[in-house]
């Protein structure tokens, strides 16, 4: 049952993702990509649990490495997306600098 439930969630999320992204205009494709890239750093949650469990040393080491890389992905991804999006301006406010 548990397995079916997880697969169920997976399939629904894929369909939801398709619906959400289909509407994004091409002007925003780069920020969309780096922003969704940051979301894929969600694997950080798994990394935190592995890194913090003290009973398996090898898993902890792998976990810490995963934490470091996933954090780069998350922090860097969100920050760079924000930097890009801050530049997108409409005509009225454009050229104010």
């Amino acid at each position, binding site marked *: 049952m548990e397995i079916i439930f*997880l697969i169920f969630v997976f399939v629904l999320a894929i369909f939801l993702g398709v619906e959400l992204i289909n509407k994004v205009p091409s002007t925003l494709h780069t920020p969309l990509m780096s*922003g*969704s*890239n940051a979301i894929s750093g969600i694997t950080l949650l798994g*990394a935190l649990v592995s890194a913090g469990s003290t009973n398996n040393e090898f898993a902890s080491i792998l976990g810490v490495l995963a934490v470091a890389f996933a954090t780069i992905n998350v922090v860097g991804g969100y920050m760079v997306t924000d930097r890009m999006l801050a530049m997108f301006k409409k005509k009225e406010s454009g050229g104010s600098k």
Partner: protein
Amino acid sequence: MSIGETLISIDETLINSVYVIAAILFIVGLKFLGSPATARKGNFISASGMLIAVVFTLANQQILSFDLIAVGVVFGALVGAIVSRKVAMTSMPEMVALFNGFGGLASLFVGWAALSVALTQAVSSGIAINSFSLVTIFLSILIGGLTFTGSLLAYGKLSEKISGRPFFYIGQRVVNSGILIAVLVCAGLFFQDSANENWLYLAVGLSLVLGVMFVLPIGGADMPVVISLLNSFSGLAAAAAGFAIGNILLIVAGSLVGASGLILTGIMCKAMNRSLSNVLFSGFGTVKVTDGPVIEQGEVKPMSAEDAYYVLEAASSVVVIPGYGMAVAQAQHVVKELQEILEKNGAEVVYAIHPVAGRMPGHMNVLLAEADVPYDLLLEMDQINPRIESFDVAIVIGANDVVNPAAREVESSPIYGMPVINANQANTVFVLKRSMATGFAGIDNPLFFKENTRMIFGDAKETLGNLVKSFD
């Protein structure tokens, strides 16, 4: 039920409820990313979803030691923050590729760590690991591994640390399928005999090799497709890791990203009129180089920037068509200067953006946004083509294949059928180009020989700078 168990179950319910909220924030965030007006807010919402998910995961009782975590988080946050602040907008494609690779690597490690924990438990309890866990763990290792090396190679090609030319060899499909099968065989053998860890190491190594082999034959012009695909993979790797450790939020967030990457991949392929397998398995430049009669060659008509000034001065409507060359020359700011001067002169100026112009989806839009060009002046191919005939001047800056009329006119051309911007239908076409070399695709461009085309040779930034100066 003992008190301890109750505590744990409350704890888990709480964390899972927070995960539901985080998932909602991701979804709302992605929805807000769909419009330039709300996109920044959307990114912030998605980031806050990530933050609360991380904070509540740390409150999980399974986590006993925080020292190592702190080291990893501080290191990662510092590197991420510094890199994202320093990177130039023109280098955005390779940076996205690099971050993408790190996400893949993290998923590989999470899968591997989960395997290590599961094996220890299996040994102590004497009950074998269930096959579903094993399969998903291997999937996260495989997809994570190939995303990592594939993205690193894409990073190398995009930043021109490695040649961007497609590297193609005979039997490449066979080799790649062979590696994939070998990984699966290793996985199978490891399931049979999980005491022998060599099969595991071999599977990890092979998936890393697979990533390299998969990106190797893909040339610079096809990079938008590959980056989108790798983006999708990094999401799927996270989803697989979610299956492996039974974390629903990883599955939801990972599959959202997986779906988004797949859609972008589809859009990019469509914009090149090629199937995904065609992009992945046949280097663009290597497709049938026609030995037949060279098509529609003629005389190239060069023009100096000063002469171009007189044409522009008289123009009442101008369309700018940028390509990767604009990024290379860092010419986006001077393009904006020219736009302002032309507008002051009474001309209408718009930009026409081809979906695969540049090295990643939306590459040109970001560069022009950096130069403060309002996004409502940026028209998509379908918006510009019906009215391009009414434009006095089309200025092609460092674009080649995306304005190649051979895609419409020459059936033997490798890019025949690809939707292009019909630059040649404007009254006069200026092509700003470094030299007469062919584009990345290595295909002749009849546009350069058209009656109404004038070539302005030289560095795009310099040429545009000279044009701007002549208006003073």
